[in-house]
């Protein structure tokens, strides 16, 4: 009883991996390679006064665009986040819009 389950498990492993690859092709087909805008353009200091730049990371609702969508790296997302929050306090960006 133990042997078939063991065989099943490694057998399922490669099978599962191949399935994932095939499924992966379909899934990843739509995805573009996302790169951190700040790393590419070498913007190291994110200014809270630069509203035009910050607005690219503010969807309609007024929330901060998540990293998984914008592709911003962790370091820059953190800086972007604080810049957006500062801009909100200065009434340059909305806290929320409906």
């Amino acid at each position: 009883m133990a042997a078939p389950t063991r065989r099943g498990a490694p057998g399922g492993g490669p099978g599962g991996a191949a399935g994932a690859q095939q499924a992966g092709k379909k899934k990843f087909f739509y995805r573009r390679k996302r790169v951190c805008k700040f790393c590419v353009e070498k913007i190291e200091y994110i200014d809270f006064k630069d509203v035009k730049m910050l607005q690219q990371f503010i969807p309609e609702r007024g929330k901060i665009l998540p990293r998984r969508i914008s592709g911003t790296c962790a370091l820059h997302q953190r800086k972007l986040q604080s810049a957006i929050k500062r801009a909100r306090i200065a009434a340059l960006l909305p806290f929320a819009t409906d």
Partner: protein
Amino acid sequence: MRTYEVLFILSPQVGEEEAAALITDFKRVADGTGAKLTHEEAWGRRRLAYSIQKFNEGNYHLFVFDSDSSLSELDRRMRNAENVLRHMIVRTDLDHKRAEKLAKRNPKKERIRPAPAFTGSEPAVPEAPVERPAE
């Protein structure tokens, strides 16, 4: 030496002369505590992203100071001034220093990476198309 950015919004009800008087007053206060004004920007009237005290517009003004001490006196004055809708004092020198450091580090990394990619692709690409049209 620290660098501070002071952004404040004056009420749209304040006239030009009054606003100018307030601004010079703030400068004097900062000057009294040993802060040096290095940059000044008048953004003028701007729409607020949300209403503050039922105003939809505000008169934005920006100071950049170099100072050894904090701007607590200016902060207190601005908080008490009725015509200041909002003010914000941000210390920026540390962030700028960090940004400079990062800017110095980045180019080295990038130089190492693209170099082998270019040498590999350059001879392969021109050779192949040249041979085919000759045949």
